């Protein structure tokens, strides 16, 4: 079975370190972009299965990046918006931007992992 390709768009170095370790340990093929523009480019060229986007980024915010990626022709990637602060208002924005999931950041990235499993039907 091919390894799942996961693109992470995250500007915080510590969170990048964590996600590489945790998702890497799970055997995913990881790509990282540290800002929106880079993320959209990589989504275009690498065609990941899953894109995980932080809400707060330099330049474009996570919601705008999500919209852009979802708007790419031939995009098949599922998008998970990952945030340090769950908010009813942001949840609506996430939905409007077309994200497939909107989850809270935790130290073990548990919700992100659950979201990936849900979106890919893994473990069913």
């Amino acid at each position, binding site marked *: 079975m091919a390894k799942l390709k996961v693109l992470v768009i995250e500007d915080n170095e*510590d969170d990048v*370190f*964590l996600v590489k*370790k*945790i998702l890497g340990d799970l055997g995913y093929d990881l790509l990282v972009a540290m800002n929106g523009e880079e993320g959209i480019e990589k989504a275009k060229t690498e065609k990941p299965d899953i894109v995980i986007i932080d809400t707060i980024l330099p330049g474009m915010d996570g919601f705008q990046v999500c919209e852009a990626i979802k708007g790419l022709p031939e995009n098949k990637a599922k998008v998970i918006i990952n945030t340090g*602060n769950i908010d009813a208002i942001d949840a609506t924005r996430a939905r409007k931007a077309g994200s497939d999931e909107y989850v809270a*950041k*935790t*130290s*073990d990235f548990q919700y992100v992992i659950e979201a990936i499993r849900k979106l890919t039907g893994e473990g069913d």
Partner: protein
Amino acid sequence: MDDSPFLKDDYHILNFVPLGHIIIDEAFRVLFWNQRMEEWSKIPAKQMVGKSLLELYPHLKESKYLTRMKMMFETGSPVVFSAQLQKYFIPIKTSDGKQWVLQQTMINPFKRVKGRVRWALVTIQDVTDPLTRLKEYRVMLNEVEAANKELDAFAHTVSHDLRAPLRLITACVRFLREDHMKDFSPEVRNYIQRIDKGVRRLQSMIDDLLKLSRISRIRNPYEDTDMVRLVRSVVERLEYDIEHNNVEMVIAPDMPVISCDCIKMAEVFQNLINNAIKFSSRGNRDKRPRIEIGYQDFSPQEHLFWVADNGIGIEEKYHKQVFELFRRTEEAKGYDGTGAGLSIVKKVIDDHGGDIWIESQLGEGTTFKFTIPKKKIGEEHG
């Protein structure tokens, strides 16, 4: 007019009331000037009688006064001049000289001769204190609210921003514990356990702070809430825990409809009931855990609600501490099964203007009692 009938005994009794009284005729001549008016205006009655009120106080010639007073003499209808819409009827300074005496003035016609109103009684009530106190109070309230908002925003930002570095530490400690402990000496392992414990504690404190600040930030308008329905819906939400612990729930059927923030009030009952479930299910397993939720018409001004359990009870010295967020002793912390729950409960009750306290002894169960002010119709609330 030395022989004015009013200088004699007829209206003398008006000198003994704390209101200002003036009697005027249709030409707005002063026929009587009571003692209070003398004190206020610093002009003795003898000097006022016979003089025209309009000459003495020319502002009364303005249409907003004169037109209505003239109409009063014509039609006989009484006139009211309120403190908020007029500056004053008679310009009088307060005893400290700093401001005008604010007046609620009523002018009542009396003494008709051949169908025409001849005389009118002016009654002036000093409402300075209530009005200025009200204004000062409103200013103070605004300042306090602004300060509170800032504090809450600060607490929110702080707790939110602290979480990112905390996530990193928590994760790294976990990586060490899961994969590397066998590589370390007992000493290093000890340090790592302690770091772990400290970090968890920090995590829970920050979560509590965030929860508390969220409660403060979000203000819902007050609504008339059926407390029986509210409590029942909260109990429904906790059904799993109630059944799992075989708790007997007793809810008083006579709870009233009260004016409150129903979302926060539901949170109050949820936290108290949750706490009660945890405590009545611990310790003493002989008796079936039992929780009672009741109501008492405490006083004409207040409702009283309580949540009582038959659990292990709380020692008196911790009765105040359990509501504090931080600075609690380990012992006191042990009594709040819901973490920040009791602090949140206290905050919500305080915001409603009520009081909350505990009646309990060790081994004798615990009753949380709280009051909520009754809404007086039309009173400022929420």
